[in-house]
């Protein structure tokens, strides 16, 4: 049987990464001295699963390493060791190390195993602290190897073995059956069996559950003792077994003979030679048995026990080639875990779809106008099912944000320790669901923000005490759904943003000229400008070349927005707003001239026709309109995109009020068309990103429509305006201050 387990590599890697995450979480929860047995058990079990899987799939270096980890955990579990801060650190480092290895394997790269050597050394040190007997036990591999050597007695010249087998009286109740063992022996060569019935009770005292028989066996074979041991492996511990070679006829002691059993066997030995009633069978196949060496696959001890199979060699692959094979696998082949109930719901819906479809094809067979109602009904059912199905399929991609949040306890712990700060981390809303892709992409920006909060936000403990704040700073991660968005808040009760510093920097960089007419929010928003860092010295914790502008552009790439609120001395709150999913958008179709565009429904506040009295002309050539006590700038899509629009004045068109980074903007278009869900297609696949357009979609008639990005449109208009203004400035040779109050 040639069975290839390679197909399980990926699933094992992914499962291991999950196990590592769970280990990390539990390790973070561990308090030295008051360790929760349940946590330790969970951590142990995760390590254990990784060890088992890696050994089975031939990743020896991983299983060896996890063995040490497991040993230490086992000592804790058994109460032989109380876990220390240093132990937790070591275990966390090991989790990191293993995570790197598995990540490399998942990505098809050659993992770097050097770190395991260093950590292995640390484990040996840690384990040597434990008392002697535990230490001996922990050194499982070494003792096993010894055992193997002693087992590895070669078949003597006499080619055969004499076996005395006195099973435990309960042998049958463990599901073992002596007859099966003999059949196996029989396959190795020529077998003579003699049963000893002396201890058989009187027939009326017989209990079918008990075995009172003993056997002496004579096996003519080339097979090693190891092979014989192997057959008796499961019953060796509670039966008396003596195996000696035919020529030497000298007992090779079984592993753990009980004193009383030895007595028994000595008695039996004498009777073994006088063979009375025996049966012999010719071996059906001359067993071609070799102990197979798998030196590069699995621990020595386990290999030695892995014996006897004609096709064994074909089934085992050396670990080196496995790594190569993995590297050939495509990286994009990532799997997602889905609960069976979600899949069952989908299957039900597919069932309904099939029924609707067959109904429709029935109607179409001989269609008459009388069937029109039926057809309409069928089509509306089809639409209903399709929509439901779409929702459910989207659901599959949704994961609780906990997947992303769970890494932060570690980040906060490590960093605060390094910086000598005292920080509590508060996590809320971790069950909030988010699209898997969005989740993956939001990870790095969040790490950056949290690191910033630790590094620049939270003050040193003594400083906090001086300021009358609690010694421990608090960083809060919160997530919740709001409309079609997921909102993630990262807040701290630290020093807050230094407004004066930001203003200085903004002025020196020419972003603003004075603080006149600039709101606090606008000032704080400047930290997201490229090259804007108020930190005087760049630490290696945050500010490693990655600025807040990168954070913002990463979030914008996800159709999301970030803003910050801060109060000096009290802390900052960063709020990230993200779409639930990237794949489908609820869109409002609209028309400008001959072009159809789509606006995400979530960004639309209201749409209306405006009358003249609402519109005001402002300095600089712009228009604003008065709406609910606000003056909202009007922008023309036709102007931004350089296209023709049908309307000739503001009152002819439709004004769509859209939400853009907490500001409202009126977008003037010719006509509103349908609302529909559209599947988002990237322009970057075959072209590049285009300003003012977040992506595209394919409409029902097969044509492409662009999905608008309001922020981008505002930017385009800014740039166009700046161009014209500089042009005028140059022409007139006079300073013409940009009036930028209007736009943002």
């Amino acid at each position: 049987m040639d069975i290839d387990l390679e197909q399980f590599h990926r699933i094992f890697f992914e499962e291991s990464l999950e196990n590592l995450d769970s280990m990390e979480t539990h390790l973070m929860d561990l308090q030295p001295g008051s360790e929760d047995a349940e946590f330790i058990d969970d951590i142990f079990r995760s390590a254990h699963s990784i060890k088992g899987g890696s050994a089975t799939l031939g990743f020896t270096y991983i299983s060896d390493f996890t063995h040490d980890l497991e040993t230490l955990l086992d000592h804790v579990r058994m109460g032989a060791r109380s876990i220390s801060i240093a132990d937790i650190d070591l275990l966390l480092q090991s989790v990191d190390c293993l995570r790197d290895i598995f990540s490399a394997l998942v990505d098809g790269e050659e993992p770097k195993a050097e770190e395991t050597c260093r950590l292995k050394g640390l484990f040996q040190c840690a384990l040597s602290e434990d008392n002697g007997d535990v230490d001996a036990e922990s050194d499982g591999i070494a003792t096993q190897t010894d055992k193997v050597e002693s087992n590895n007695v070669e078949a003597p010249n006499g080619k055969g073995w004499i076996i005395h087998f006195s099973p435990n009286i309960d042998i049958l109740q463990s599901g073992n059956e002596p007859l099966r063992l003999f059949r196996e022996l029989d396959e190795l060569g020529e077998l003579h069996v003699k049963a000893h019935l002396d201890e058989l009770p009187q027939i009326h005292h017989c209990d079918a559950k008990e075995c009172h028989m003993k056997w002496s066996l004579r096996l003519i074979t080339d097979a090693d003792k190891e092979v014989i041991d192997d057959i008796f492996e499961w019953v060796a511990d509670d039966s008396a077994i003596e195996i000696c070679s035919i020529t030497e006829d000298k007992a090779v002691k079984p592993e753990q003979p009980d004193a009383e059993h030895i007595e028994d066997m000595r008695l039996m030995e004498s009777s073994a030679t006088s063979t009375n009633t025996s049966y012999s069978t010719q071996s059906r196949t001359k067993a071609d048995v070799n102990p197979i060496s798998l030196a590069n696959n699995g621990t020595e001890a386990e290999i030695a026990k892995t014996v006897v199979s004609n096709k064994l060699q074909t089934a085992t692959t050396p670990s080196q080639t496995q790594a190569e094979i993995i590297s050939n696998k495509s990286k994009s082949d990532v799997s997602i875990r889905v609960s069976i109930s979600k899949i069952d719901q989908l299957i039900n819906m597919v069932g309904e779809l099939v029924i609707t479809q067959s109904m429709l094809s029935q109607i179409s067979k001989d269609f008459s106008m009388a069937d029109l109602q039926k057809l309409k009904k069928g089509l509306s059912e089809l639409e209903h099912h399709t929509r439901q199905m779409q929702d459910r399929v989207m659901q599959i991609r949704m994961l609780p944000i906990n997947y992303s949040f769970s890494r932060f306890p570690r980040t906060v712990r490590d960093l605060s320790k390094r910086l000598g700060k005292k920080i509590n981390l508060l996590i809320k809303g971790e069950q909030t669901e988010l699209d898997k892709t969005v989740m993956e992409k939001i990870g790095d920006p969040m790490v950056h923000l949290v690191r910033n909060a630790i590094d620049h936000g939270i003050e040193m403990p003594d400083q906090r005490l001086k300021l009358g704040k609690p010694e421990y700073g608090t960083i809060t991660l919160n997530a919740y759904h709001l409309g079609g968005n997921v909102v993630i808040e990262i807040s701290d009760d630290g020093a807050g943003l230094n407004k004066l510093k930001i203003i200085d920097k903004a002025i020196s960089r020419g972003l603003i000229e004075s603080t006149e007419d600039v709101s606090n929010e606008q000032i704080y928003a400047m930290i997201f400008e490229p090259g804007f860092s108020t930190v005087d010295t760049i630490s290696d914790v945050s500010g490693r070349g990655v600025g807040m502008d990168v954070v913002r552009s990463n979030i914008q790439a996800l159709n999301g927005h970030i803003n910050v609120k801060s109060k000096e001395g009290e802390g900052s709150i960063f709020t990230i707003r993200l779409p639930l999913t990237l794949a489908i958008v609820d869109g409002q179709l609209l028309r400008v001239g001959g072009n159809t565009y789509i606006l995400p429904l979530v960004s639309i506040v209201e749409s209306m026709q405006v009358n003249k009295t609402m519109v005001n002309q402002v300095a600089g050539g712009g228009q604003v309109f008065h709406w609910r006590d606000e003056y909202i700038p009007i922008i023309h899509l036709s102007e931004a995109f350089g296209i023709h629009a049908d309307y000739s004045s503001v009152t002819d068109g439709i004004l769509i009020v859209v939400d853009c980074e907490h500001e409202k903007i009126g977008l003037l278009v010719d006509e509103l068309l349908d609302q529909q869900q559209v599947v988002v297609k990237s322009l970057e696949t075959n072209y590049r990103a285009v300003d003012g357009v977040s992506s595209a979609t394919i409409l029902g008639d097969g044509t492409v429509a662009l999905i608008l990005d309001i922020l981008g449109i505002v930017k385009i208009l800014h740039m166009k305006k700046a161009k014209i203004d500089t042009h005028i400035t140059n022409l007139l040779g006079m300073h013409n201050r940009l009036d930028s109050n209007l736009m943002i």
Partner: protein
Amino acid sequence: MVNTVNIDQTSDDAYGENKLQDTMQFLTFLMAQEEYGIDILRVQEIRGWETATTLPNVPAHIKGVVNLRGTIVPLVDLRHCFGLPEVKYSAETVVIVLLIKTDKGDRVVGIVVDAVSDVFTLAESEVCAAPELADSVEINFIRGLATVNEKMVILLDIDKLRLLDEIPDQMACDIKNQLNAQRQE
């Protein structure tokens, strides 16, 4: 109505090579009475012109995007790239969908040309190297010249055309000059 011609690609190397191999197959197309050849292994399909969705504020040679079986594909007006006068697209105007390699990865792009002409096989010996032009250093998008049926065909290296880049007017001019220079050879 869109006429689609699928070209079967049986070669292992669907990308072709920058270097001429022993024999190569070329698809030729016409633009302003001139015949150009491109490596047939890069051709994904040939379609009739259909109205594209225009993109805002992109270079003029990018005619917009179309839906090619669910992916969004940009269309490039090759006349514009070569500094040739624009013509009105007609029923004969053809879009050749190509796979091109850019420094950002592979891209599928449609080029708008006047008409598709022929497919022929050339041996390496039949291709004359393009003469070196001292002035235009960067733009060596001409692979070589060949004579087929007593007519000169300009063999293009489509990757070097950098179809999706912002092509400034100067570049179009250079291309025009270079082509003229080729013609005079």
